[in-house]
């Protein structure tokens, strides 16, 4: 299959291992990526917190650019995904807003392409059977908890992703890779998001609780699909509760025997290599 690709700002910076692993996994699974031409930032939390119209117009510029490829658009970052879906929702529901935004952005929005996250593409379009057939190195001994966070799921009528209180599709992907995915009740709790810079004290409390609960569930690592969650879980938890954190695509790549995981793991704050070596996974 072929999709448009919107990496978003983080994937060119602090989340570059997410970008590289998404590209590697896509190649291996036969998903051809065509980057959205001259994309710009989605505006994230800062736009919608301070200016509603700006928060619709910024993603609208990218949606209009993506429509030129006439392909569904893959958005790996949960925050960008949420802003795209929210903009789509308002542009489709409010005709007056749509024409105003089209005038601001200088282009027509048609709404003809779907906004997709790679978790959902791998689960629905590639399928677990195909994925299982490509596993060459099962993740035996890895006990991850899936951490979905907020922005893939809520609000459910906009995101349309998975069960919003107990999502399971990432759990199923990880189990297909041979991991012993642990059930837990903190998969959709908030990590504090962008407060991480301005109120680090609050975010530390939030992620330390999430990490403690992951440990209580018997996990030896946490898996996410969001650069903000990754940054917070990997850097803000108290020393005594830390665990390695992975982008889910890093683990898909590892199980598929692809090149890259060694280099990506070096980029994490909590070094996952001792755990992976002890399990003979690297």
């Amino acid at each position, binding site marked *: 299959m072929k999709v448009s690709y919107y990496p978003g*700002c*983080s994937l*060119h*910076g*602090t989340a*570059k291992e997410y970008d590289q692993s998404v590209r590697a996994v896509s190649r291996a699974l036969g998903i051809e990526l065509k980057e959205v031409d*001259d*994309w*710009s*930032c989605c*505006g*994230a*939390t*800062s*736009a*919608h*917190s*301070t*200016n*509603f*119209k*700006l928060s619709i*117009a*910024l993603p609208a*510029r990218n949606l209009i650019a993506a429509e030129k490829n006439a392909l569904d658009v893959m958005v790996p970052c949960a925050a960008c995904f949420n802003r795209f879906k929210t903009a789509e929702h308002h542009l489709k529901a409010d005709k007056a807003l749509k024409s105003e935004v089209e*005038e*601001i*952005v*200088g282009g027509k929005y048609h709404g003809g392409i779907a906004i997709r996250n790679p978790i959902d593409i791998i689960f629905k379009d590639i399928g677990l059977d195909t994925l299982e057939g490509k596993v060459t190195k099962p993740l035996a001994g890895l006990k991850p908890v899936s951490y979905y966070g*907020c922005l893939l*799921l*809520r*609000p*459910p009528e906009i995101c349309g992703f998975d069960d*919003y209180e107990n999502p399971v599709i990432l759990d199923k992907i990880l189990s297909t890779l041979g991991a012993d995915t642990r059930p837990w009740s903190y998969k*959709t*709790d*908030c990590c*504090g*998001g*962008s*407060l991480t*810079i*301005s*109120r*680090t004290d*609050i975010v530390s*409390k*939030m992620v330390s609780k999430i990490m403690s609960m992951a440990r209580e569930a018997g996990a030896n690592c946490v898996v996410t699909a969001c650069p903000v969650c990754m940054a917070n879980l990997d*850097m803000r938890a108290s020393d005594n509760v830390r665990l390695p954190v992975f982008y889910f695509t890093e683990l898909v790549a590892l199980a598929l025997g692809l090149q890259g995981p060694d280099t990506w793991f*070096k*980029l994490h*704050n909590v070094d996952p290599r001792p755990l992976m070596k002890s399990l003979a996974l690297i």
Partner: protein
Amino acid sequence: MQTFLEQVNEKIDGVPIQRCYHCRKCTAGCPLAFAMEYNPNKIVKMIQMGRRNEVLNSATIWLCASCETCVTRCPNEVDIARMMDALRQMAIETGVAAKEKNILKFHESFLSNIKMFGRINEPTMMVQYKLKSGDLFSDMGMGIDMFLKGKLSLSSPKTKDLGAVKKIFEKTKQA
């Protein structure tokens, strides 16, 4: 003249917040309630009572992280997350100083960085924030570590048609 409640409802442009029957489910699920001086349910009640200044001067409206748990669980579909956005915007528009100054300064730095490059360049955005907030030294060690790992590049690609991005900011600017 519109009441505070009417103004907020107009800005939310959805289910009127007086549909709230104060079951406090929003507050029970709010992951930030522990850090707020007025919990989300209390803010709804205060809006109904017209306590405009206390609401717009509160830390709560800035501490909301927009996780959307409240609106997802509200039995009456009151969009509390959108309400918090609306209240922040009303505070900005009417010149009420943000109680959580650094949270607003972060948003301002973030948006000004988009205006400059079209995309966020994390190191320059952090410098902008540090200069604005005066919080110069926190996270320095982590920043250096990330720089050494090649995660903080000053030369990350920018949007070529910067004019189009600047125009979006210009045309959505609030009076």
